[in-house]
C-alpha cells in the first residue's frame, strides 16, 4: 500500500503560522494556498509539533538555508515524531550518507557516488526504461480504465533502481513496503516506528545481497559501491547498506510522484496534452515545468546551533522543513508561478534542491520522467481523468498522486 490517510486522532491545524503540520489533511490535499498565505504573512512559520519545527516558504529563505551548512545540519532530513537518537550515527556522516552528511565528510561520500549517476551513465538505462514502460502499458492494454500511478508510475523508478543495484526484479514489492514505512508514516508514533525499524527486515535483505556480491562481484551498482574507496579504504558494508537504503528511499516514490503528477496534469488539461502530442519538441520544457510546479520533494534540516534567522530564534535541534515545492511557486522568483506553462523557457526551479545536496539522482529522475511521458503519450494520445474523487495524495515530505484512474478509451 502506498496511500496514507492522515491520522484522524491528530489535532487539525487552525493557525498555520504558529501551529503548522505538513501531515494535516488540508496540507496533504492542497498545500499551495497555505504557502501562498504564509509567504505574505510570515515567511518563516513555526510549530511546537514534532518537538519544535520551522517552515520557510520563500525561495530566498529556502535558498539561504540550503546553502548554509554551518548553521544547519543534514543529520536528519525527514521531520517526524522520531528524532535522531544516540543510536543513530552522528554528524557529519549520519544514517544514510551522503544525504545525511555534513561537510567535510559529505563531499567525499558524494564524490564516490556521482560517477554512477552522471548524465552519460544514466543515458545507458534509457532503453531498459523505455522497454519497461512499454511492458507496463502492455500489461493493461485491454483495460478502459488504467491507474496511471499504480499500474504505471510507481513501477518505473522502483524497477530501474532494482536493475541498477543488480537485484532480482521480482523483489520490487519488498521495497515498496519499506518506502511507505520510512517516508509516509511520519505521523506514526516514534516508538512504533522504532520497533518496525528494529525488525531489521530490510537490513537483512540488503546484507544478503551484499554478501552475494562480495562473493561474486558483478557489473552493477552494488559491486560498484563495494569496490569504491573512501580515504584509501573500501567502504564498510554498513556504509554500503546505508547508501542502498538512501537510493531506495530517495529514488523511488519521488520519481513516481513526478511521473504521476505529470500524467495527472495531462489527464486534466486537454490543451496541454494535445499541444505536447502535436509538438513533441515541447517535451524538454514541459518536463522542467512539471518538475517546478509539481515538485514532489520537501527536505529538512536541523538547526546546528542557536542563531537568529529572519528574526526567528532558531534553537539547536529544531527541525527546519525545506519545501522546495514552495520555493518553486514563489512569485518573486517565477512570473505566473501558479500557472503551468509547458513552454516556459526560463525555469530555474529547485525541484532537485539547491547547493551541495542537489539530488544525486536528478539525471536518472529526469530521464525516467521524460521517457515515461513519451511512452504514455505514444500509447494514449487521448486520455482523461475518470473519477477525480478517487485521486489521492501521499502524506509526508514526498508529495504525489497515489491513485490516478484515467479513461484511456
Amino acid at each position: 500500500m502506498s496511500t496514507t490517510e492522515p491520522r484522524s486522532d491528530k489535532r487539525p491545524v487552525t493557525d498555520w503560522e504558529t501551529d503548522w503540520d505538513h501531515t494535516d489533511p488540508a496540507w496533504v490535499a492542497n498545500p499551495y494556498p497555505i504557502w501562498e498565505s504564509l509567504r505574505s504573512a510570515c515567511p518563516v512559520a513555526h510549530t511546537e509539533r514534532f518537538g519544535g519545527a520551522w517552515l520557510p516558504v520563500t525561495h530566498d529563505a529556502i535558498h539561504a538555508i540550503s546553502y548554509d551548512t554551518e548553521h544547519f545540519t543534514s543529520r536528519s532530513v525527514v521531520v517526524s515524531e522520531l528524532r535522531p537518537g544516540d543510536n543513530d550515527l552522528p554528524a557529519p556522516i549520519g544514517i544514510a550518507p551522503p544525504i545525511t552528511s555534513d561537510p567535510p565528510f559529505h563531499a567525499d561520500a558524494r564524490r564516490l557516488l556521482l560517477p554512477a549517476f552522471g548524465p552519460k551513465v544514466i543515458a545507458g538505462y534509457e532503453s531498459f526504461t523505455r522497454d519497461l514502460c512499454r511492458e507496463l502499458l502492455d500489461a493493461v492494454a485491454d483495460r478502459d480504465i488504467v491507474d496511471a500511478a499504480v499500474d504505471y508510475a510507481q513501477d518505473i523508478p522502483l524497477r530501474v533502481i532494482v536493475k541498477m543495484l543488480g537485484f532480482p526484479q521480482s523483489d520490487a514489492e519488498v521495497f515498496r513496503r519499506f518506502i511507505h514505512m520510512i517516508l509516509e508514516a511520519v505521523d506514526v508514533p516514534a516508538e512504533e516506528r522504532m520497533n518496525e525499524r528494529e525488525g531489521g527486515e530490510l537490513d537483512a535483505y540488503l546484507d544478503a545481497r551484499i554478501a552475494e556480491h562480495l562473493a561474486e562481484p558483478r557489473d552493477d551498482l552494488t559491486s560498484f559501491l563495494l569496490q569504491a574507496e573512501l580515504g584509501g579504504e573500501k567502504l564498510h558494508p554498513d556504509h554500503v547498506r546505508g547508501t542502498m537504503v538512501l537510493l531506495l528511499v530517495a529514488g523511488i516514490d519521488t520519481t513516481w510522484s513526478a511521473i504521476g503528477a505529470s500524467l495527472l496534469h495531462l489527464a486534466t488539461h486537454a490543451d496541454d496534452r494535445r499541444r505536447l502530442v502535436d509538438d513533441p519538441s515541447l517535451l524538454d520544457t514541459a518536463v522542467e515545468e512539471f518538475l517546478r510546479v509539481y515538485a514532489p520533494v520537501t527536505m529538512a534540516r536541523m538547526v546546528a546551533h542557536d542563531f537568529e534567522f529572519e528574526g526567528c530564534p532558531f534553537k539547536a535541534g529544531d527541525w527546519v522543513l525545506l519545501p522546495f515545492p514552495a520555493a518553486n511557486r514563489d512569485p518573486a522568483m517565477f512570473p505566473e508561478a501558479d500557472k503551468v506553462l509547458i513552454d516556459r523557457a526560463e525555469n530555474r526551479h529547485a525541484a532537485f534542491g539547491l547547493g551541495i545536496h542537489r539530488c544525486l539522482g536528478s539525471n536518472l529522475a529526469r530521464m525516467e520522467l521524460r521517457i515515461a511521458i513519451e511512452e504514455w503519450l505514444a500509447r494514449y494520445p487521448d486520455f482523461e481523468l475518470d473519477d477525480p474523487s478517487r485521486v489521492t495524495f501521499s502524506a509526508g515530505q514526498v508529495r504525489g498522486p497515489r491513485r490516478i484512474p484515467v479513461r484511456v478509451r
Partner: protein
Amino acid sequence: MRITVDSERCQGHNRCYAIAPELFDVDDLGYATATGDGAVPDDLADKARLAVANCPEHAIAIVEEA
C-alpha cells in the same frame, strides 16, 4: 560572446548540458564545463542565454567581448 562555468558553484544539475550540448560538457562526476575556450558562435547565443537563465546555482556567466 564567451561563457564561463564557476566550478565552485556548479552542483551538477546538468541543465546547461541538456539545453546546449554544443556549448557545455559534463565530466565523469556530472559537473559542467564550457566546451573549448567557451566561445559562443552567434547562432548559439540564445541557447547560451537560456543555459544561464536555467542554472539553479547561478554558476554560468556570459562574458561579452569587445
